């Protein structure tokens, strides 16, 4: 599911239909009700932070793009798979803080352990791939790809190892969110504690 295309549903606003001015006490009239995070449900109007939601909406894609930039630039400046993965993960943390119990799974339909597994697989396959060409494992090579208009694009194969690290780190952060974020939250609800 592409999160950007899904229409925001506002089933969280009130189970008994959209509140009308008559049914709402006057001090709640100006509480914001429109969901700002794209696929997320509208959280409790008393608890939501509109400023954070709007900022997150603007920042989330930007941070993700920035993380990809960090990933690619790692070979030439500060960055690399580890930092890039953390940046992308923090983008999801921001979403979680703004959107609340909206499961990060709503944004990323892939489950975190799968993401981690894919990352580790990519890294290990990158490590083993040179053996197919008769070179020792983990050998890196420079691929030069001619790209129209841009000229030649140089890719060092160790970038794929970095991609693996990136995916794994994103998966780890999402797993952390799942376990310590929504997991503990569910735990607290289950235990009947105030949330």
């Amino acid at each position, binding site marked *: 599911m592409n999160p950007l295309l899904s229409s925001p549903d506002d089933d969280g*606003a009130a189970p008994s239909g959209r509140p009308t001015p008559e049914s709402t006490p006057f001090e709640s009239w100006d509480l914001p009700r429109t969901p700002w995070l794209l696929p997320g449900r509208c959280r409790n109007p008393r608890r939501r932070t509109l400023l954070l939601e709007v900022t997150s909406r603007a920042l989330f894609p930007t941070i993700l793009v920035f993380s990809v930039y960090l990933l690619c630039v790692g070979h030439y400046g500060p960055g690399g798979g580890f930092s890039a993965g953390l940046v992308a993960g923090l983008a999801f943390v921001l979403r979680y*803080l703004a959107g609340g119990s909206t499961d990060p799974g709503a944004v990323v339909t892939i489950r975190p*352990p799968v993401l*981690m597994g894919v990352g580790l697989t990519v890294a290990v396959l990158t490590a083993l791939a040179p053996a197919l060409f008769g070179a020792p494992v983990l050998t*890196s090579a420079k691929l030069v790809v001619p790209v129209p208009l841009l000229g030649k694009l140089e890719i060092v194969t160790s970038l794929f190892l970095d991609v693996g*690290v990136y995916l794994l780190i994103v998966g780890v952060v999402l*797993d952390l969110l799942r376990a310590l974020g929504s997991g503990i939250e569910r735990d607290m609800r289950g*235990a*009947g504690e*105030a949330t």
Partner: protein
Amino acid sequence: MCVLGLVVAHLVLACVLPLVSARSRRAGFAVAAVLPTAALIWALAHAREALTTGVSATLDWAPELGLSLSFRLDALALAMVVLVSGIGALILVYCIGYFGESSPDGTRSAALLLAFAGVMLGLVLADDLLTLYLFWELTSVTSFLLVGQSGEARENRSAAVQALLVTVFGGLVMLLGFILLGEAAGTYRISEIVALGQAGGLGGGTVTAALALILVGALTKSAQLPFHPWLPAAMAAPTPVSAYLHAASMVKAGVYLVARLSPGVADAAVWWVPVVVLGLATMAIGGWRAMAQHDLKRLLAFGTVSQLGFLMVLFGAGTRIAAISGIAMLLAHGLFKAPLFLVTGIVDHATGTRDVRKLSGLWPSMRGSAIIAAAAAASMAGLPPLLGFVGKEAGFEAFLAEDDLRGRLVTLALVAGSVFTVAYSARFLWGAFARKPGVADTPVHGPGPLLTWPAGLCALGGLVLGIANPVVDADAQSYAGAYPATSPVEAGYHLALWHGLGLPLLASAVALVLGYSLHRGWSRVGRLAGHFPRALSAQHAYEIAVGGTERVATAVTGRLQAGSVPTYLVVILVTVVALPGTAVLVGGSWPDQPIYHAPLQLPLAVLATLAALALVRVRRRFTAVLLVGVVGYGVGGLFIVDGAPDLALAQFLVETLSLVAFVFVLRRMPSRFTLERQRARTQVPKALISVVAGGMVAGTAVVLSGARQVPATTSAEFIRLAPEGAGALNVISAIIVDFRALDTVGEITVLFVAAVGVASLVLATPYDRRRRRGKESGAGSPGHEAEVIGDVAGEEPPEGSAGTALVPSEHEEVRP
């Protein structure tokens, strides 16, 4: 390279065999029998070369580590291949008739038996100690799986675990011995080691220790005293499995190893004394215990233990005739023990029991099986003209020819052991087929030809080779050629049915007469056997060892895992202070360094220090977490000042993430550390440990940072190589993804495991709680009730627990 191809083909076919078995179990076994047959044909086709020069093949496995897969087909290996592949193929054919079409174990057994045939073939052909060890352990694993079957019966499970524990224990000890021997000899090639030993190049303490360790492996695998109980217990496996693994092939691995190394090392007392003494003791005790069994399979199992002892003596003695006799007995034992097991399986199939007290009067109804069993048992007892007789004659001759005290003592013991062999051979025949007074004839339904033919062929093999003994003699002479003849008798000795009247023939006759008398008189003698002290039994010792290990583990775990975080922390900190701390105090020196070298370092250091000091005084968890964050960001700032942007970036990101993680967890914790004031009695030691540990870590950091006396050459090389070697302008990145890429892969694997572990721990808890709660309160759980009532949101979050503000609740929003 044909050898490795054959072994691999076994394993590959074993992997795909379930596809065949799923359509037809019988077809599965039939397909499985093809490869062992091919292996046998291959070996026999190369027999001429094998007996003269030997067929060798080597494949480099990891040349950098000096590891190679080496194989060699020689006389001894040829004899073992006949047993492993020849009898293996016959037993797989037998399985076609034995396992029912609906048997749930058939599919797995077919694949595992074939895999076992492959690894056993690899074991007997291996010419490298480490290759041999690899296959050795694989046979233990397949044996474990075959004995354990589906793991549903307690008997199977305990037998499988016992077999695995004993043989793998021996295997690991043996590995130590292999490494010591390989390092002492300078090569791991078995043929080279044996040649070195024959030239007198092996000696010294290391070799002695190595041989003792290797013997432990051989003795456990071949179920010698005091490790023998696992073999009778393993009879919980289906009969064809017992016939193949625990009679014909796997248990011979220990004997094989002794036979393989003896030509080089048999002169060493540490080698032949334990082998001969334990072998003779095992032969006697195995025979004695066999007489006392009522289950035909257990009777045969103790018989196998006894015969393995005999083989150990023959191969360990280190003389020419004993070696000749060993080869003959090795073949004879496979050819008579396998059909005896197979006949037991036929009897079991036909009557539903193998208890000698219930079986009666089978002779008229099962003549074919009875004749097969009689031929095999006669070979076991040593009756001419069977191969067992030929081998045993040579065995007596071997020790009589020594003509010294050792030879006479061993001969006497061998005769005593043979008496038991004859006795339990007779007992087997009597127990399976004779009509017993007072027992009604057992009803029988006839066995199929697929059951009787393989058994018959095996037994026939014993007869044919007994008459055509020059064939065996050719193989045995080739093996025994490793021992120089010390006398004309030894030099001229050949296997034969008739050596003339002499002491060996007398010994055989005495064993036959006494053995038969023992069987006849067992009802009187056996009463003496009933009172074996349990305290001395090897099975009891095994149980004590395993149970004791478990008890110690429970006690140690109980002490170490106290379940208190402060206790764990104290243990860790005290260790840190005691071990690395002492090392730094003794060996470190305070470096002569400037306090700071950039003005910006001062405010950052002051900020971090102040935050750290404040941390000690705060009472709220959330404040403490924030202060830890301040310290972390301060350190990150220092990285920037020192020109390490990569490090600083990672530090900031990790610091942020851990702050978030802390806040998440803090939601579940009280907002303050402790509610009541702590007593000084506990406070003072804690404070002391913390101060010492903290000071130690800080001091160590300073000392270590000044420990490098010369500029690091590695860093310079990294910087030089990064642009063209790794194609990276950023040397940090080049190190992470190229120079030290293996470290990176390892680290992300650790991260993966840690993340999965944390997630499992956190996500698993609510399920536990839900289950407990369900038990306490029945259908309506309190948490669920609260949600229904909607009472949860009524309470204000506790002041200061900032985490709660982040958490929305789905059911509080409609409250008016």
